[in-house]
Every structure is written in structure tokens, then in C-alpha cells.
């Protein structure tokens, strides 16, 4: 966010405390939501739980279009609407809740770097697998994305989304990659994360930060989502400390969810 926008946000947000009726919007869980959106939404949910801020999850067919930036998820707090993890972290910081206050500047820079890594590697890989791999796109992504709409609108929207994502992949240079190369990139990303995590409970020792929430959101979703091939999940499973990391966060923050 730009500096004046940040300042503006802080001014407005700082005025009110976190309300009871804060809501998080995402597409329909059973039939519509895709891997990448589910991962982003889970990351935000994990972050808010780590901060101890209550939020209600509401599923809407048009959540993607309701969002001010077009990305899932977004939260509706008071009369403010904020989307995506980055701005949401800023927003909660303005209200006085933060997980990374205890970090010094070096650590904060490191955290930002790893978050960028996850966004550039894991998220992009998820989008690639969903929309650029023909098998997944035909069997899973397009049917799910178009399920709430009637024909011919369903086909139009699904193909439009696919073209849009493929254009974006070409623009960032992923258009020419094969599925194998993408799996390799995911493995390398996981290796970097695993090395940083080591034997610690969280990335920055005792207390979770937004980086933990982000990594958890993506890894947990990949591990629990059924795709056309289980290759992606397998690559992650080879790093046992990441597996126990996910399990730990799930048990600590989501145990009421499991029921």
C-alpha cells in the first residue's frame, strides 16, 4: 500500500476497536472455492485466530467480485472492507494488534522476504496447476468456478478466468514451464522454508507471526485438497518438520473447527 493510503487507513481504523460482528467472505466452500483462494482464506483466518480476533466466515457466490481488489478473501469490519493478507495485517496493526512487534528490523526484513517467497512460489504454483494444467483445469477448476452460474454464463466466466490467469503466467515467465518444473520449484520453496523452520515451533521461535499464518494456509490446503495428482502433496510430505508445523497450528488454533 502506498504511504498516504497507509496513513489514511491507520487514522480511520485506529478509531474503533475490533467489533464482534467482523466477517470474512470467501466463495462457497463445498462447490466453488479453488485451491489458491482456499489457501489465502485459510492464511487470513489463521492470522486472525493467532491475534485472538474473532471473525465469522461467510460464503458468498460473488465474493470475488465483492472484494475491492478482486482477490479472496476480504474482511468486513465495522464499515471498512479490506482484502488480502498484507493489507489486513496493516489494518489490524492500526487497531493495535500485531504479531511481529517483538521482531527487530533484521528479522522483520527476513519475514517479509519469506512471505514474498511463499507468494511468488507457492501461490503462483497453485494458480499454475489450477489453470494452466489442462487436466486439472478441465476436471476441477472450470467446473467448480462455473458451478453457481447457469449456461452459457458459466462457460464464459470459466474460460475468461482461465485466459486471464494464463496471460498473467506468461507475463511473469511461467508460461513456458512444465508441470515437472513447477513441482521442482515447489520443492525448493519447501526446502527453504523447512531449513528456516528447523526444529523451532514457529518461524521466529516461540511466537507465531504472519509468516506462520501464510505458510500454514498454503501447506495445509495443499495437503488436504484432492487434485488430479497427489504429486504436490507428496513433495510437501517429504519435509517432516513442515508437516508437524501444520499439525501444531491446526491443533492450537483450529481445534474447535475440527468438530
Amino acid at each position: 500500500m502506498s504511504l498516504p493510503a497507509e496513513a489514511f487507513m491507520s487514522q480511520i481504523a485506529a478509531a474503533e476497536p475490533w467489533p464482534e460482528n467482523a466477517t470474512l467472505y470467501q466463495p462457497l466452500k463445498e462447490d466453488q472455492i479453488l485451491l489458491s483462494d482456499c489457501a489465502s482464506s485459510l492464511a487470513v483466518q489463521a492470522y486472525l485466530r493467532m491475534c485472538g480476533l474473532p471473525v465469522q466466515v461467510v460464503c458468498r457466490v460473488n465474493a470475488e467480485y465483492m472484494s475491492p481488489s478482486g482477490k479472496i478473501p476480504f474482511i468486513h469490519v465495522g464499515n471498512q472492507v479490506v482484502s488480502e493478507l498484507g493489507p489486513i495485517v496493516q489494518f489490524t496493526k492500526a487497531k493495535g494488534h500485531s504479531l511481529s512487534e517483538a521482531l527487530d528490523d533484521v528479522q522483520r526484513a527476513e519475514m517479509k522476504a519469506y512471505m514474498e517467497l511463499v507468494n511468488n512460489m507457492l501461490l503462483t504454483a497453485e494458480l499454475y496447476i489450477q489453470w494452466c494444467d489442462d487436466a486439472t483445469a478441465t476436471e476441477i477448476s472450470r467446473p467448480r468456478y462455473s458451478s453457481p452460474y447457469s449456461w452459457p454464463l458459466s462457460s464464459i466466466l470459466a474460460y475468461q478466468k482461465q485466459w486471464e490467469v494464463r496471460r498473467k503466467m506468461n507475463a511473469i515467465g511461467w508460461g513456458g514451464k512444465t508441470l515437472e518444473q513447477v513441482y521442482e520449484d515447489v520443492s525448493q520453496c519447501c526446502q527453504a522454508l523447512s531449513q528456516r523452520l528447523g526444529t523451532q515451533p514457529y518461524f521466529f521461535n516461540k511466537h507465531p507471526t504472519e509468516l506462520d499464518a501464510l505458510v500454514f494456509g498454503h501447506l495445509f490446503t495443499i495437503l488436504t485438497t484432492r487434485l488430479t495428482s497427489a504429486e504436490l502433496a507428496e513433495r510437501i510430505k517429504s519435509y517432516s518438520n513442515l508437516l508437524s508445523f501444520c499439525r501444531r497450528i491446526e491443533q492450537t488454533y483450529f481445534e474447535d473447527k475440527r468438530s
Partner: protein
Amino acid sequence: ISSIHILDPLPMKGPELGVQADDIEPPEIEQEPKQEVLENKDVVVQRVHIDGLGRTKEDLLTYEIAGVFRAKNLIDVMRKSHEARQKLLRLGIFRKVNVVIDTSRGEDALPNGLDVTFEVTELRRMTGSYNTMVGNNEGSMVLGLKLPNVFGRAEKLTFQFSYGTKETSYGLSFFKPQPGNFERNFSVNVYKVTGQFPWSSLRETDRGVSAEFSFPVWRTSQTLKWEGVWRELSCLARTASFAVRQESGHSLKSSLSHAMVIDTRNSSILPRQGGLLKIHQELAGYSGGDASFLKEDFEIQLNKTLFWDSVLSASLWGGLLLPIGDKPTSIADRFYLGGPTSIRGFSMYSLGPQSEGDYLGGEAYWAGGLHLYTPLPFRPGRGGFGDLFRTHFFLNAGNLCNLNYGEGPQAHLKKLAECIRWSYGLGIVLRLGNIARLELNYCIPMGVQSGDRICDGVQFGAGIRFL
């Protein structure tokens, strides 16, 4: 008899003989007996020609001119020729139609035989227009293409393309009347239209296709239409209310609609007499699509000329939107009320249910208006420019709300009758051609509810359809 030319302008008020001075044989006293002879003389129309046809097919025109053959005397011939000329012009394929009535020539000419010739000039095959429009912080370039009489039977193809700084719209339309029966026609349209509605902080893009079939039944005009529209709604500004944000997204509407119109007014803008009844219903959801509702609306207008060239006009509008199934209605289907074209004294569509300053529209409404139109005081520019202006005194009232469909009709009527907004005032109306009118009014709004936005004092309005 000397040849008689019948030219513009019309309508004829009586037998206009238009006899040229040199054609009359002197002395003048013989004119009167000549007129009597012409009026009472029985004639037979032997031939009717149409000169100047290019691509128009003749079978189309035989229906329009058939009436001329049935004329029995000269006055009848002139009247029937005039009617046939009107019919030919109405087809929209000729630029000019002249009628020439002459005595029959040739071998089989009867002594009282007449030949009627229609001299027509066809419209060009393709006409284009280019306009630039500027308004509301947006400039746009509008390109129009019209192909009248494409296949020779009065079919019309129009294409319009508007390219603006903010939005782009286009539309393609094909119209075909039934030969011999112009009132029965069908048309097919394909369009993309974008609208910005600042009163709701909403932007709507419609991409659709529609097919329409019109036919007259007794004195009414009926229209059946199927329409399939892909609607895309989005917020116009980041500050849009959450209620409007919730409506963002895509939906598909496939609807069948029927409209019935009885129009006995002498003009659609500032009529002096006659009435209008328009009933329209639309059923969406049974031919596919996401939207599912039944929509009814009606429009009644009655006009009566009073003493001293003043006209009293009363109008009533109403509508109801009934959602079918458990999905709520979309903001794109609801009714809106208020503004210089409906209840004057209120801002444009700024009446009724709203959320944080954005007006959401309502599922039921009614609006009534009572007007007294008089000529301008002291009648400046009488007989010319001044006749385009009228002063009017008005009283408007109406209500827009959402109904709770669980209750009965008594409860609905009660809800529509409470919190009535109304306004009164006076102003000046300017008539623009035969399609539009401009108004400048001084309005006093009353019955204002919290949430309504008013525009009391001077209000300007321009449009086609006014309450």
C-alpha cells in the same frame, strides 16, 4: 381537365385543387361551375404506377397502394392517394413521395379514367452518422450506420457504436415488417450497454440479445419479447455501501415479456387529448438464467383540453416485482423513483430504500401526476417559436418500498399508502421535436422521509418519458 399536382405539406383540410392561374381559361366566373363538376364526377382509377423504384420489391408496395383503386369519385381519389402516400412514407424507405393524378391516356382509356402515379425517391443504401457527445466528465464518440431497405422489403439494419473515455457500448438491430401489414413486425437486437448510476454507486454492463415481435390486435398494439442478458454489476466507487457491494458480480437473465399499448393521444409529447394505457409484464427464470421473478408495471395517462387552450393531464404509474424462489431480487431489476422525470422536487432516483446514501430501489411503487398546461403568459412568439413552450402547474405523488410477501394484499396496499412523498410547483416545458421535452421547474417537495434526497427550488429535467 387540366392536370392536378398534389404536393407537400399535408394534411389536407379539404379539397385542395391547387389549380394554377394560367390553367384556368378566362373568364373567372366559370370557376364555380367547374368546381361542382369536378366534385360530383364519377371516375375510375385505371392505372396506378410507382416510378423511381430501385431495390424495393414491388410486391411490398401493392398492399399500400391497393386502396386507390377503390376510389369512386375525384375527392375520394385524392383522399385515398393521400392515405397511400402516408403508408409509403411510413415504411421508412423513401425520402420523398409525390402523387400525380392525371387523366388516362392510351387506347383503353375511359372518358372518366384516371392514372395515378407515385413518384418516389428511395433512401440511400447506407447512411452513416458521426457524433461526439460530452457530458458528466465523460466524452464519447458515437458512430451510427443505418441500412434502410436492406433486402427490398423495408427491412432495416442499424448499428451504433459509442466509444467513450469511460465506457464503450454498441448495438446491432435488424427490423422486418410483414409485407402489407407494417404494424406486424419483428426485430432482433444484439447489444452491449454500460451504465453508471451514481445514485446507487453502481456500474452495470449488460450484454444481451433480444427478439421482439409486435402485432396489432383490434385497437391495441401487442409486443412479445424474449431477452437474454448477461449482467455485470460492480461498485462505482470504493466508498459504495456494503449493501451495493453485495450485489456485485455476474448474473444471467433470460426473460419473456409481453406489453400492450393503447395510445389515442394526438402526440406523445404534450398531448392535447386522448389517453395512453400501457401494461407490461416480464417473467424471468423459466427459460434459463439465474434471475427468477415476475415483474408487472403499468402506465396510464389521460388528457383533456380545457378552456383557453389549456390542457389538463393526469397520469398514474405503478409496478410490482415478485421474486420467484428463495433468491432475493437484484438491484438491476428493481424500480426506482424520484427526479425531474418522475416525482419532481426529489433528486434523480433518490427515493425509497437506501443504505449509507446509496439507493437500492424497491420492489413496488406507484406514482401519480396531475398537470395543467397553459400557453406562456402574454403568449410571446405566438404562432412560431412560442408555441413550443408551455407553462405547467403540477402535483406529483408517489411511493417506493419493499413489500413483505408473506402478508396479504391489504397489508401491501397499506404499506404503499403510508409515507407518501409528494410535491407541487410550476415550470416551463419546451418541446423538442416529437420525441423529447425539457423542463425547468420550481418544486416544493413534501412528505420527505429520512433518507430521501430532495432538490427543492429550481430543477431542470430532460427526457422522453415524464410523469
